[in-house]
C-alpha cells in the first residue's frame, strides 16, 4: 500500500520528531508513504492572510503534483497544512472561476478529487485496524488528548464528530492502553501564532490548558498539531511564568505515543527533541 505524503515545513523543522515518528510507525505497520515530489508551502498564515489567490494557488500546486504522481489519498500530518489543503480543495470545487484561474497559473487541469487525510484519519484508517497486534508495550498512564482548533473547525468542512468534545484521539490512546482523561480544554485555543508576536498571550491560553490537564491527573498531553505542540512545549517558560509554578508534564505527538507502544526506542520516536523532557517512566512503565 502506498499513500501520498505531504510533510510541510514544520515537519522538516521545528517538529521533525513528528515526521520521524510517523515514518517510524508507518514502517512498522507496513505502510509506504510517498512524499510529493518538489512540494511547496501550504499557504498557511502569511499567504492566507495577505493574498487569497496565492493562498489557494500554493496548496493547489501541491494537489496538482500529487495528482501527477497518481496519488489517490494524501496524508497531511500538520494540522495547519491539512486545513489549507482541505479548504482549498473545497473552495476550488465550489468556485469554478477560481479553479479556472488556478488551473491557468499551474498550467494543469486539476481533477481535485484526492482524498486528504489528517493524521487522525490516517491512523484510524490504516493503523488502528492492526493496532491490537502491533502494541507491544501498553502505555498505562493517564493522558490528556488535546485537539486544538484546526483539526475540527470549520465544522461544516471538517465534519468532525462532536467538534466541541472530540473523541477520536481518546479512542486511539485507549487502544494503546492509556487512560484518556475527560477534560474540558480539548479544543480551547492554545494561542497559535501569537507564539511569536505576543508570547504572554500564549502563556496564558496554553497555561490554562496545561494547568487543567495536570490538575486532572494527566501525565502527558497528546497532540496532533505542530503549532499546538510548540506552544505547549517550547513556550513552557511563558506558561510557567503565567501559572507562577513549575509544570513538567510532557507534550507528545500521538504518533510518538504509538511508536512507544509499538516498542520503538525513545530515539526512534524523536522524544529527545522536546523542550520539556519526556520522562520515560512517566509515559511507560
Amino acid at each position, binding site marked *: 500500500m502506498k499513500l501520498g505524503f505531504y510533510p510541510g515545513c514544520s515537519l522538516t523543522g521545528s517538529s521533525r520528531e513528528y515526521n520521524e515518528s510517523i515514518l517510524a510507525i508507518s514502517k512498522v505497520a507496513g505502510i509506504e508513504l510517498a512524499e510529493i515530489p518538489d512540494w511547496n508551502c501550504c499557504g498557511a498564515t502569511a499567504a492566507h492572510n495577505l493574498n487569497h489567490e496565492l493562498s489557494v494557488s500554493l496548496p493547489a500546486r501541491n494537489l496538482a503534483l500529487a495528482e501527477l504522481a497518481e496519488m489517490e489519498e494524501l496524508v497531511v500530518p500538520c494540522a495547519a497544512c491539512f486545513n489549507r489543503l482541505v479548504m482549498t480543495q473545497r473552495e476550488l470545487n465550489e468556485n469554478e472561476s477560481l479553479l479556472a484561474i488556478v488551473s491557468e497559473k499551474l498550467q494543469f487541469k486539476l481533477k481535485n478529487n484526492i482524498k486528504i487525510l489528517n493524521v487522525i484519519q490516517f491512523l484510524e484508517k490504516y493503523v488502528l485496524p492492526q493496532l491490537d497486534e502491533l502494541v507491544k508495550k501498553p502505555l498505562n498512564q493517564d493522558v490528556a488528548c488535546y485537539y486544538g482548533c484546526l483539526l475540527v473547525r470549520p*465544522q*461544516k468542512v471538517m465534519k468532525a464528530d462532536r467538534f*466541541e*468534545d472530540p473523541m477520536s484521539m481518546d479512542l486511539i490512546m485507549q487502544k494503546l492502553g492509556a487512560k484518556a482523561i*475527560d*477534560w*474540558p*480544554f480539548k479544543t480551547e485555543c492554545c494561542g497559535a501564532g501569537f507564539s511569536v508576536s505576543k508570547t504572554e498571550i500564549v502563556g496564558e491560553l496554553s497555561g490554562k490548558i496545561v494547568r*487543567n490537564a495536570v490538575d486532572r491527573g494527566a501525565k502527558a498531553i497528546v497532540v496532533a498539531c505542530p503549532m499546538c505542540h510548540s506552544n505547549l512545549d517550547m513556550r513552557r517558560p511563558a506558561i510557567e511564568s503565567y501559572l507562577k509554578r513549575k509544570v513538567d508534564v510532557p507534550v507528545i505527538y500521538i504518533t510518538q505515543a504509538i511508536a512507544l507502544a509499538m516498542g520503538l526506542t525513545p530515539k526512534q520516536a524523536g522524544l529527545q527533541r522536546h523542550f520539556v523532557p519526556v520522562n520515560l517512566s512517566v509515559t511507560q512503565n
Partner: protein
Amino acid sequence: MSKIGVFICHCGENISATVNCGKVAEVAGKLEGVAYSTDYKYMCSDPGQTIIKQMIKEKGLDGVVVAACSPRMHEPTFRKACSEAGLNPYLCEMANLREHCSWVHDKSDATTQKAIDIVRTLVEKVKHNKPLSTIKVPVTKKALVIGGGIAGIQASLDIANAGHQVVLVEKEPSIGGHMSQLSETFPTLDCSQCILTPRMVEVAQHPNITLMTYAELEKLDGFIGNFKATIRKKAKSIDEKLCTGCGLCTTKCPTKKIPSEFNEGLGFRTAIYVPFPQAVPNKPVIDKLNCQYYLKGKCKVCEKVCPTGAIRFDQEDELVELEVGAVVVATGFNIMTTSEFPEYGYGKYPDVITGLQFERLASASGPTLGEIRRPSDGKIPEKIVFIACAGSRDPAKGKPYCSKICCMYTAKHAMLYQHKVHHGESYVFYMDIRAAGKNYDEFTRRAIVEDKVNYLRGRVSKVYEENGKLIVKGVDTLLNAKPVEIEVDMVVLASAGVANPGSEELAQKMHISYDAYNFFSEAHPKLKPVETNTAGIYLAGACQAPKDIPETVAAASGAAAKVAILFSQNELSREPVVAVVNRSAPPLYSTCVGCFMCATACPYSAIGEEEIKDRKGNVIKKVAKVNPGLCQGCGTCVAFCRSKSIDLDGYTNEQMYSEVMALLNE
C-alpha cells in the same frame, strides 16, 4: 339529441362592452343539440335565474350552459337554480366569458368569436355530463383525542361540552402531560397544578368522556366521519374496577429506586406506581420492565397487601376498536436531551439540568418540595446560570428553529430562583429575548429590573467542573464585548423543544404529514392552522411546533370547534367529483387490470383493492377501488391509467376529449 339551453349574460356591461352577446346567443342557438339560447343583462339576478328555471321546464332542457363570469364565482348559484327547476345540478356548466374573455380583450370580432368558441366548448362538454348526486357520508359523532396533556384535555372538554362523545387516549398512566410537571406559569406565576388539576378531574367525571390511560393508537383506518381506530390498552396489571386507589401497594413495593419520569429523574418511584399524587385516574400500574415479579418470578408483595385483591399479574394488552368521526392529535412535544452538546456537560455533571428538571425542583410537589437544591449534594445553589437556546436556533448542531417558549420560562426560572434564594446570584446567557405576547415583555423586564437577574447577551462555549464548582465559559457581546467565566453551583439548560419520539410513526399511521423535525404539519400555515391535510384529523398544541399554554389551549379549542362543526351535521355532503373504476360485462368485469399504479400515485391513499368474485365466492380478479370518502377528485389516477379504466366524474375522459375537439373545430 340533447336539449341544451345556453344563457349568455351581459354582466351589466362587463361582458357586453367587448363581446357581442346577441351574436354569441344567436350562433349558440344554431349549435347542434342546443334547444334554446338567449342573452340577458344579469343572468345571476333573480329574473335571470327565473329565465333559466322557466326554460328548463318549458323546453325540457337536459343541459345548461351559463356563459357569464368565472365558475369559481357563480357555479354554485346556477347549479342551485337548475336544481330548483328539477334539473340535476351537475348538468349545468359555466362558460367563463368575463374573466377569460371580455375583461382581457378589447372589443372586436375576434373577441366575440373567442366567446363563441368558449360557449361551444362547454356545450360539447355538457353533452357528455352525467347527472351526479352529492355524496353523502354519514358522520359518527364520536371524537378520538390522542394525548392527555393540556391540549388533549381542553379539546376533550370542549367537544364533550358541545354534547358529543369523546375518547381520550393517553400513553402514560395519568393525564396531565408536561403542564402537570410545571411549577408556576408565566407571565402570572400562578401554580400550574392549581389551574390544571380541576380540568383533569373534570375530564374524569365528564359523562361524555371515556378516558383510556396507559393506551396508544395502534391503527387508524377510514376517512372523515368514519374512522376506525384500534387502541392498544397496555396491561396495567390491576383490575381497575376493584382498585380503590388506596396506595398501600405503592408504599410496600420493594423496588423503590426507579427514576421517576414525572420528576424527570430527580426523584424515585416504585415498580407499582401512580406517577404523581394528583394523577387522574389515581390508580396504580405495574411497570413490567422494573417489577421483581415480572423480572424474576418472585415477589407479589403488592398482591399480598392489596385489600381488594385487585392485582392481576396475568393481565394482557387489550386491543379496542373504536368507530369515530374525527380525530384530534394532541401528542405534545419533548425536550432535547442534549447529548449533541457535550460542551455543556449535561449527563456528565449532575448539576447541569434541563429546564424541565428545574420545574420539578421549583415545584412544591417536587422532590425538594419546592426548594431549589442541586441534585448532586442537595445544597442550595448560591450562583446559577441559565443557558437559553440550548439547541434552538442552531443549524450546526441543534435545531434551526426558535423553540419559542424558552425565553419566557427561563425568565420565570430565574425569577423563581431569586424569589426562593434571596441572596443568590443568577445569570442568563441569551441570543435575543423573544417575549412577544400579552404581558410577556413586561415579565422579562421584571426579571431583569426587579429581581436583578443578570442577563448576558452571548453564548456559552463550555461548562466544566473544577474544584466542585461548575465553570461557565461564555461571552458577553454587549458594549465591552469580552469573554466571561462564571463559577457557579448549578446550570440550567433551556433545551430545544422537539417532536416526541415516535411521532413520525404515529403520523404515518394516521396518514398526516409532518415536517423535517417530525412536528405534524397543518393544512395551511395561516388559514388552516388546526387542520391537517387529511380531512377529519385536527391538531392541537405542541405536537405541531413548540407552543406555550395559552396558545396550546387556543389551538385545542379551535380543533374542538372544528370537530363540533363536523358533528353538527348528520351527513357530510361532498361534491361528487370523485374517481370511479369502471365495470363491464363478464368475462372482463372491469377493464382494470389491477396494476395499482393509480394507488401509488394517489395523494390521498384513496385507492384500495376490490376482489371481484363469482357466485361461489371465488376471486376472479382484483381491481382498484376508489373510496369516495377519501377521494378529493384531483384525477391524477385517471391520467395514469393505461387502459382508461378509471375516470373522474365531472371531468371524464369523454368530457375533456370533447372539449378539446370542440375548441379547435369552428
